[in-house]
């Protein structure tokens, strides 16, 4: 993907004679404003997540019962000490929001990466060995696709107790079947292609053929699937945390904040609305970006 972007950037630099307006127009044709906004928002959230300890005004666990349920700064009763107000234990909502974004993004990224690696590996195995391996993987894909994954997660978390590793693992399992299906299909068509046969006749090991040659060639489809899977993971994490079986206190996540703020929805809406908006904007931005990436990487849609 970066290759393509670079190529096009250098192209536009080669034509300095075009006037400014046309170039602006072309720039927005290539990168629509909504895509730019989505990308900037995601970058902002990543920035917040990475530098959470530096930018949060308070420790997200510090309780101050004297300032319980304080409103945000622009409302009556609010002050500049707590920009987004405080929750029922007097904890700063902004600080909690910052750390929640960090936790939720971390879980979603790890979950997405684990799912991508797991699914891609199984897809390669199925395509390489065919036969019963293929049958088992395909059966697994069909199982996964027809399972109500949310309920399975609930059960597993309830049974095995809640810990972060299991939780992230579950997020990783979510959606692996789509990577596996994409990888298997594209690999089956790639290994009949000249380049894969060619590398094979050079004497390369299958691992080399798959990782050095086929993977780069099918990566665009996998990247697109990652961007589409990511919002789903964020929402799954939020839903489970909202129900109280996801991220456990004292840790906090966006869903977890929503869950605990639920009781104060009528009196202190700010506890739930800010994390809710954060979830909404994060998933929306990722979906917009994903759609754009898919269009960009699909030569038939150019």
């Amino acid at each position: 993907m970066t290759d393509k972007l670079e190529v096009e950037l250098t192209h536009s630099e080669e034509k300095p004679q075009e006037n400014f307006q046309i170039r602006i127009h072309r720039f927005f044709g290539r990168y629509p404003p909504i895509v730019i906004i989505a990308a900037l928002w995601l970058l902002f959230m990543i920035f917040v997540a990475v530098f959470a300890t530096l930018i949060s005004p308070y420790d997200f666990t510090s309780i101050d019962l004297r300032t319980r349920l304080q409103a945000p700064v622009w409302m009556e009763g609010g002050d500049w000490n707590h920009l987004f107000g405080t929750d029922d234990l007097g904890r700063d909502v902004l600080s909690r929001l910052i750390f929640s974004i960090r936790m939720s993004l971390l879980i979603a990224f790890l979950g997405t990466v684990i799912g991508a690696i797991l699914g891609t590996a199984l897809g390669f195995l199925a395509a390489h060995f065919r036969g019963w391996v293929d049958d088992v993987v395909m059966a697994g894909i069909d199982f996964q696709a027809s399972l109500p994954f949310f309920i399975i997660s609930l059960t597993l978390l309830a049974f095995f107790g809640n810990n972060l590793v299991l939780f992230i693992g579950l997020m990783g399992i979510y959606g692996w079947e789509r990577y596996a299906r994409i990888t298997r299909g594209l690999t089956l068509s790639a290994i009949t292609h000249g380049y894969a046969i060619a590398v094979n006749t050079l004497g390369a090991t299958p691992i080399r053929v798959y990782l050095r040659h086929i993977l780069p060639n099918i990566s665009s489809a996998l990247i697109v699937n990652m961007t589409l899977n990511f919002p789903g993971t964020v929402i799954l994490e939020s839903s489970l945390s909202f129900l109280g079986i996801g991220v456990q206190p004292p840790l906090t996540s966006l869903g977890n904040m929503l869950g605990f703020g639920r009781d104060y929805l009528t009196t202190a809406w700010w506890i739930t609305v800010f994390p809710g908006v954060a979830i909404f904007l994060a998933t929306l931005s990722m979906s917009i970006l994903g759609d754009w990436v898919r269009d960009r990487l699909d030569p038939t849609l150019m």
Partner: protein
Amino acid sequence: MNKQEGSSVVSLRNQNGLPLLEVTDLHKYFRVRSSGGLFGKKNNLKAVDGVSFSVSRGETLGIVGESGSGKSTIARLLLKIDNPTSGVIKFNGRKLSGLLPVELRKLRQHMQYVFQDPLGALDPRMKIIDQVTEPLIIHNIASKSECHDKAAELLRSIDLKDHTFYRYPHELSGGQRQRVVLARALIMEPQLLVCDEPTSALDVSIQAQVINLLARLRERMGLTMIFISHDLNIVRHICERVSVMYLGKVVEQAQIDLLFNSPAHPYTQALLSAIPIPEPGLNRQRIFLKSDPPSPIDLPSGCRFHTRCHRAKPGCAERIPELKSLKNGQLVACHLAHGEI
């Protein structure tokens, strides 16, 4: 190249008595669904049906035939891209079929394949130089910088300029791509090079360039080649011996001059009559073949060619002709040529 490997190559090259490649009674059947739909019946498509030949060191064997005659399938079988249904392929006296995957990978550095479609044969996401270097890295021949130097030297020797090294395949022209494919095949200095219609995807002007390059490299490296083509002119230019294939069988096999001067099989005669003569006013008697070749799933009885043969006699449909030698050493599978009917 490590020491042990080097000595084994030398010892292989010393067995000059043996042919480099020996193919005996090779069969390849594909299971295909003849009638459409989910529940159609499966039949055997006989792509290669009992082919035997041998190629000695330094020789170039041409395989010609129309599309569907099984020539590309033979190439794939020789390189073990596909496995034969039955039959034996011996390379340097070793059977290909019993090899372990590790042994096969090792052996592959001595036999290389040049593809019909150079764009498809190159990884679209890898730079030219990396693709040419790759065989050396796979077989752990030299350090990375040495590999790079060797690849660059080879590419320069086939007239590819330095600035193309860091391009991607789609940025090159067809002729350049085919030269890259050749370079990749030849960088290991293989003993056997199988070229599957290496010029059919190229312009006529570039065809000559690639063919001459092939001939030059063959001289320089002492290559043994199998050259598959449907272009008889090119085959005549580059090959020493030719096999003519029809529907999965070799119908005629002879030294190039013998075949072109006195074709014995009616099919070969028809093929040769289609070559234009580059002299105005001079016309040879064109032999037009009737209709298309029959389906390889439902083969004609007796001689497979009798349905289209201009000299066919009733007896041709009854017995299958064997590939036998004529007095002059030409191998032909035809009842008429052997005077059997």
